[in-house]
């Protein structure tokens, strides 16, 4: 369960409160500049709120630095070139993501990586040594989805993950995203501009207006 209590960030978020239960898939929509990404950055620990507290289950994570928080909060960001490292191989990228859980990468984990990559149906599982910069934008974003969910986590944040992709690739990536989210059954928040992705899997839709969330 993710709980935000009276969060204030600069002048963007104003006394924002939100509770998302475990297994819930919440969509956040809203115009640019209303504070959607600020909300995500606050949850993931890129920025710290001036006021208010953030809880995951019963743990207060308001002041926890991002690198520690990343064990609980997993995020996929808009730009796949930032969300993955192009100069490293798929295997190295996955290893880095896997280490987030504080675990070592062993020989047997490589089999696990392969298994996770098969969800994508992009044949990446047989190209582990390939440099990520040689992949397409859609493949990179799909890879970062796998990376975000490769270790245990409590909350998954998907920030306009299709913003940098063309419509066709967007659909594929969104399909993979909902597949992974359904499989994992964890708390998930998704920011989107596109109402096409509102479907039966979505539990709740929130509208962000001027730093406040409204049920719609």
């Amino acid at each position, binding site marked *: 369960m993710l709980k935000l209590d009276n969060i204030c960030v600069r002048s963007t978020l104003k006394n924002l409160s939100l509770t998302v239960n475990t297994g819930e898939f919440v969509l956040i929509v809203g115009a640019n500049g209303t504070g959607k990404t600020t909300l995500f950055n606050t949850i993931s620990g890129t920025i710290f709120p001036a006021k208010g507290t953030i809880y995951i289950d019963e743990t207060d994570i308001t002041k926890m630095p991002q*690198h520690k928080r990343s064990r609980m909060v997993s995020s996929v*960001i808009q730009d796949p070139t930032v969300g993955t490292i192009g100069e*490293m191989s798929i295997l190295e990228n996955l290893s880095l993501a896997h280490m987030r859980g504080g675990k070592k990468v062993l020989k047997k984990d490589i089999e696990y990586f392969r298994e996770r990559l098969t969800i994508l149906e992009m044949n990446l599982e047989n190209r582990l040594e390939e440099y990520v910069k040689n992949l397409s934008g859609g493949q990179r974003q799909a890879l970062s989805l796998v990376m975000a969910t490769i270790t245990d986590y409590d909350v998954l944040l998907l920030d306009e993950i299709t913003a940098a992709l063309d419509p066709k690739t967007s659909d594929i990536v969104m399909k993979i995203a909902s597949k992974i989210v359904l499989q994992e059954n964890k708390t998930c928040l998704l920011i989107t501009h596109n109402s096409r992705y509102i479907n039966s899997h979505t539990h709740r839709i929130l509208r962000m207006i001027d730093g406040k969330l409204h049920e719609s």
Partner: protein
Amino acid sequence: MIGMQEILTSLNIGLIFGIVAIGIFLTFRTINFADMTCDGSFVLGASVSAVLIKYDVNPYIALVTSFISGGIAGFCTGILNVKFRIADLLSGIIIAFMLYSINLRIMEDAPNITLIDKTTIFENDTQSFVATAIILFLILGVVFMLFSKFGLKLRAVGYNQRFASISGININFMKIAGLMISNALIATGGGLFTNYQGFCDISGGIGTLVCGLASVIIGERILRFKKEPLFILSCVIGSIIYRIFINIALHGDILGIKTQDINLITGGLIIAIIIMKKGKIKC
């Protein structure tokens, strides 16, 4: 034009400065931090070794002390950058600037120390074999480190800080660790160079950065490994080639080049290689 003796000298100095080049590679390339501390930390390592050897301390222990002192210098630069948010270039320059005074203090207010009749690492052939072994050990150590999980994290910080942060990597810690290892290696290079020359000078560090960078660039140009950690080997080979190049330039009497022209030549060499690099498509 160039005899066996010159090549051997180039090889020796090239190996010693190879360690310096590795240190520079670790900051400039691996963690993407333009660290200017090296001009100071090189002399720091040199002066620490020189003073200890002067007081008849075992040169190997002196070398280890040089290594540690360099690590401390790197730590200071890291703290300035990470904790006090001073820009990377400036924090390095400040520490190098301050090290000048510290180095003079270490050298007991004398601008240079000569190690005549003292036991150094390069006393005889067997010992210079030991010195080579130390250098190879350090090189392999760094390669091994870069292949490890720690090295993977270090490289991730250099490539993409945003990614590193959301992947649970403590960027501040990694930056400081990288700077410490880098400067420790550079100081060790300084210590070895003092042993080799039997001499330490307060201004000996000027241009360490440029020489090291020249070696890194030459190495990258000549030897491109598929695995990035192996680039460390390119640095060492680049360093040796650089020394041979300088030696040829100095011994080519026809060219009429004097010792004081080295900086001009090195600078021109770096510019030329960088321009050549831009002409080609990066692979």
